[in-house]
């Protein structure tokens, strides 16, 4: 997916396949990790320095655990690639972007035109999140 419109980074993607969280913590030289829904992503925080790619899986698009996992990693200072995989649909990508995801590998293809419209639709947001959108309270008060 490196050249697809679903990657929002300029760096070279990690070329190593992602391993499970347990395997990643065991293998000192691993750089890519896969987080399943239900994994406690806080276990990664002590070793964040060596992580280049985190894949967070969405087994069903209604399962929102991955949004919190993403926020927790970004709040801990993780700057590497954060990829949403699995049942990722166009109507979820905006909130995923706001939670810090910067690449997407959905099971089913996403229509680029619909995605583009979805990402541009909202000019304003109410909260600070993991993106650089400025919340309206800040716009109101300068």
């Amino acid at each position: 997916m490196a050249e697809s419109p679903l990657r929002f980074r300029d760096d070279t993607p990690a070329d190593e396949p992602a391993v499970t969280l347990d395997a990643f913590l065991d293998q000192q030289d691993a750089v890519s990790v896969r987080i399943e829904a239900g994994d406690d992503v806080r276990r990664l925080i002590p070793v964040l320095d060596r992580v280049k790619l985190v894949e967070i899986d969405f087994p069903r698009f209604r399962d929102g655990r991955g949004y919190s996992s993403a926020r927790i990693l970004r709040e801990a200072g993780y700057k590497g690639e954060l990829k949403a995989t699995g049942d990722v649909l166009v109507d979820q990508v905006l909130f995923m972007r706001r939670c810090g995801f910067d690449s997407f590998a959905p099971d089913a293809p996403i229509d680029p035109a619909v995605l583009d419209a979805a990402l541009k639709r909202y000019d304003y947001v109410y909260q600070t999140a993991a993106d650089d959108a400025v919340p309206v309270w800040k716009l109101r008060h300068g």
Partner: protein
Amino acid sequence: MYRYDKYDQAVVDARVDEFRDQTARRLAGQMTEDQFKPLRLKNGLYLQLHAYMLRVAIPYGTLNSTQMRKLAHIARTYDRGYGHFTTRQNIQYHWIKLQDAPDILAELATVEMHAIQTSGESIRNISADQYAGAAADEIEDPRAWAELIRQATTFHPEFSYLPRKFKIALIASPTDRAALRWHDLALRIVRNEAGEPGFEVFAGGGMGRTPFIAYPIRAFCPAEQIFSYIQAVLRVWNSHARRDNIHKQRMKILVHDLGHEEFTRQVEETFAHILTLGTDFPRAEYERIAAYFAPPPFETGLPEEIDRSDPDFALWVDRQIAPHKAPGYAIVNVSLKRIGGIGGDITAEQMDAVADLAERYSFDDIRVSHAQNLVLPHVRKQDLYAVWQALDAAGLADVNLDLVTDIIACPGLDYCSLANARSIPIAQKIAQRFADPARQLELGELKIKISGCINACGHHHAGHIGILGVDRKGTENYQLLLGGSGAEDTSLAKITGPGFDENGIVDAVEKATDVYLRERTEGERFLDTYRRIGVEPFKEAIYG
């Protein structure tokens, strides 16, 4: 009341555009119903037995006359000329066409209204005390904080695909008129010893098939940190709730499974972290919002006395009026519980009538109560007679606030695809049985709540008398519960024994009231007598 600025308006307008796009993609077959369902639910659009139902948010139950007239217009144009106020202070329309929904949302947006997060696994509309800003016993008007929380929880990117729905209630009085502790997150504005504002926090309440009363988890959260605290609660739940069984995914189940002490510990740990992120809205933003909730320009020197020479008016005054904090003013409760009608239902013409009265007599302010009645919060006592006459002409002057005929009932099997039994006809039969006004007053405060299935939308767990409709071998069967409360003395009603058929349940309710009349001591309500004497005398009368 709060008014949108260009930012609020832009967000709601964008939502209309987004939903129009989603609906078009669904109608064009580019999305499956499975994919569309959570999206339409996030916008309050349910598929019921006969049609789509659209639930429109009324934030913290506050409306102005322009908004009420728009609701009337929508009822006339897109529905069958009426709407239904709900137990969470919203309004819903039961006969909506999917292709009309985007146009309805566009109409709502012109009067600063929306249907955002009124359904689905999202942070729902915040409910609040319907007497906010008027109650004689409140610490401050809770709606400024409710509006701040509304904004903070609108399209929250982390918490839009939650395990289940999430309901917040907020009050600022010792008297609970909002069924506070039956919510996932319950907030009460308090002051600490230094006189600073903050929130007492309860978590893990909810009705449904597994009812829990929310546990106290924090005695005092500084007011300006409340968004951090709410996010901490949501993150703990979102991360750790079960996702394998929709009936076990409400936050109340996690709180119960972890134990409220462990849940609280995890929330506190997460709260300490989230506080460091600086996501709380600044004081200046609270003050900007609070300015919209400044008290209206109450007149001074108004007369306190009310001319009670018309006996029908006097009866209405004695029941439907509550004390106001400003001298010379009163809070008017407008009953939507006409005997023989459907509780919470209101015609477009009645909506217009209430809008006119609010504009003329109540500083353009209307409230919705969780008991599915309306409130005109700021009426001069000298205007009460005129207001009563106008309400009477509109069929809205019933005298039954908190009485046996002021029944909460879910839509039930007449509308709802989840229901096992009808609720509305049971409420109507009970109301007809107790229709005599003198008998209602004799029985005093008595809250009957009826649900047509175990999802408990009719609050049967919180009824002084609760009724639960179930399906028993293909016939509707009604269980009787006693002793619940949704007020500050919150309690969970208990099933008395075997269920009844449609007529039997009405008889059982009447027998329970007979026991009360026989056993009560001076000043006791039905609930007080039940608590004092216990269930046995009631069982004896009902089943003996």
